[in-house]
């Protein structure tokens, strides 16, 4: 082990250099979840989707809910980091990497939900061989793969200097880091090119991210089904996605802050800013939800109202009101004042939003299918252990991969922090440039 001189580097590389007992416990726990998921999938693969609780009217359930949810979470990442980066918000520096990793991990898992949901996963290639561009599902495939590529690149580019640090400082995995570092030496030219590339990607990734979730919403809104067929769905989904993304990011930040002792890097101020962002999103989410349901209520189409009342007072009321509680009441009450117990409040709000947003996805997918227009024998959907297993496994895989990532790469960008510290002066200059110049009194 090479001695690492830089204190910052030492702290940030510590999780990669040393592995504690907690890590193994976490891996073991998550592996159990994943094992459950794998087992569930194997059963489902051999027996057919019949092992789930899905049935004739309700042909979509947990998997599609998870799909929308995970794709939603993915917005955390890139979108926040990109926006903060473009707006040159200096407090972003310790956050961006975490956000970007969430995006990449969760995108794969979200896309995987569709694979799990397919009756014939062996024919997945048909989508590519015989794809039909009329189908919103194909738009999804396209935009998600574009988003995957973009966010992977966007994650990777700012990591190059850090990988080079790892290559130089860390004793192990020399080969891996050398390859990934792409010969980074930190020359000025390299710096310039990298910065340019990051900036371009940041610009690119925002429209792609928005398109992804709009397209996900189109899966529902392009049909004629009551409470799906809505023009508001695109922005509504995007807002929800950012909302849940921020929440997931905050949860991840707090967890790693605690686990890896990053208190110096992730300070209450970060959480306060993010908390305020979350508050804004909660209000925005409420606005969209209110508009959506009020419009439906006033239109009072019988078919819409069947689903509407099923959510308000019918069999889905716990989910609906649970969603309102988790997405609005709890976060608002936690976030209005962040002067004290910032981190605790933000964590509570974020956890609540993660749950609430999952409920929201569920409450969008299932009730509409449960109440068909025609007098069809109705059925209430209740998931089986297989669906719970695959859901748990999906979360498990996400957490495990995230954890493993932190064992290979620094979760907080070393060079960006350093750059931030070195660039205080530059920031000062920039600040001054925002302000009106000193007024020279005319004489």
């Amino acid at each position: 082990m090479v001695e690492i001189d830089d204190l910052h580097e030492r702290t940030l590389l510590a999780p990669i250099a040393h592995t504690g007992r907690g890590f193994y416990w976490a891996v073991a726990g998550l592996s159990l979840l994943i094992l459950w998921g794998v087992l569930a999938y194997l059963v489902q693969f051999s027996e057919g989707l019949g092992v789930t609780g899905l049935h004739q009217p309700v042909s979509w359930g947990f998997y599609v809910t998870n799909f929308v949810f995970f794709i939603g979470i993915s917005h955390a990442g890139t979108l926040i980091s990109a926006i903060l980066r473009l707006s040159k918000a200096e407090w972003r520096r310790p956050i961006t990497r975490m956000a970007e990793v969430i995006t990449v991990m969760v995108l794969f898992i979200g896309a995987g939900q569709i694979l799990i949901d397919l009756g014939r996963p062996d024919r997945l290639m048909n989508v590519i061989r015989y794809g039909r561009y009329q189908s919103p599902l194909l738009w999804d495939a396209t935009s998600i793969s574009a988003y995957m590529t973009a966010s992977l690149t966007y994650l990777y580019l700012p990591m190059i200097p850090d990988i080079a640090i790892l290559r130089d400082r860390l004793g192990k995995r020399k080969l891996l880091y050398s390859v990934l570092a792409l010969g980074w030496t930190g020359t000025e030219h390299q710096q310039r090119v990298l910065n340019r590339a990051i900036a371009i990607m940041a610009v690119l990734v925002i429209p792609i991210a928005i398109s992804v979730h709009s397209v996900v919403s189109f899966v529902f809104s392009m049909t004629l089904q009551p409470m799906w067929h809505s023009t508001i769905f695109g922005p509504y989904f995007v807002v929800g996605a950012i909302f849940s993304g921020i929440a997931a990011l905050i949860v991840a930040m707090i967890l790693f802050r605690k686990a890896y002792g990053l208190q110096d890097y992730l300070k209450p101020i970060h959480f306060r800013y993010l908390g305020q962002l979350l508050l804004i999103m909660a209000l925005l989410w409420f606005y969209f939800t209110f508009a959506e349901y009020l419009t439906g209520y006033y239109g009072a189409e019988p078919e819409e109202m069947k689903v509407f009342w099923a959510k308000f007072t019918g069999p889905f009321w716990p989910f609906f009101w649970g969603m309102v509680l988790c997405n609005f009441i709890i976060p608002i009450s936690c976030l209005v004042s962040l002067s004290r117990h910032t981190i605790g409040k933000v964590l509570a709000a974020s956890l609540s939003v993660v749950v609430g947003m999952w409920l929201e996805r569920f409450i969008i997918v299932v009730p509409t299918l449960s109440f068909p227009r025609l007098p069809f024998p109705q059925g209430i959907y209740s998931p089986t252990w297989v669906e719970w297993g695959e859901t748990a496994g999906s979360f498990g895989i996400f957490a495990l991969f995230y954890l493993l990532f932190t064992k290979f790469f620094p979760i907080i960008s070393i060079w960006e922090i350093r750059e931030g510290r070195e660039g205080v002066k530059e920031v000062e200059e920039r600040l001054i440039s925002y302000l009106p110049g000193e007024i020279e009194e005319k004489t």
Partner: protein
Amino acid sequence: MALWGMVIDLDRCTGCQACVMACKAENNVPAVGAKEAKRGRIISWMQVLTETDEEHHGEKTRFIPRPCLQCDDPPCTKVCPVYATYRNPDGIVAQIYARCIGCRFCMAACPYNAKYFNWHTYQTEKPGQNPDVSVRPKGVVEKCTFCHHRLQKARERALAEKRDFDPNDYVTACAQACPAQAIVFGDLSDPTSAVSKLAASPRAFKLLEELGTKPKVIYLSEGEGRG
């Protein structure tokens, strides 16, 4: 080109389900078994829906036999990512089992719930089945095809016998079986056909017409009234 359509007279329909069973026998539709049925997975390409007017405490009940409505503007085909379902030139909404990836988007999109999914392997090939129709594997969506294989065979017969195809050679199993002759099948593009004449009746209406799906299954309402 013919435009195949169906008229179902709800006043004549007795809710006997002969159409349902005829369809099952003709198209090798499996019985899914007690356990699966309880979970709401009965496959019934033709299904008799019972509509009860809640304001009248069940006094006004009607039976609506519902096949696939073979929409001219089908919501299901638009969403299929792999062309496993599409409207063919005859106006029949086709379902290609060998292509279907089982995403069930078409089921979610169909406002008539006319599409059914094979949640398990419900049956394999065995005696007593109709060899003209394949047995569907697990994981694909299936639905009424207007007994398209009968059209195939009728056409092919005409071709082999070197005569013109006669639209009367083609009738669906449900229309053939209906004891009250409430189901009439034929060519909607031919104004002289029985089905066209009935479709012009003042009693005629279409299910969920307001959705603009343009179904080719037309219903005749009950009660007094001409036609």
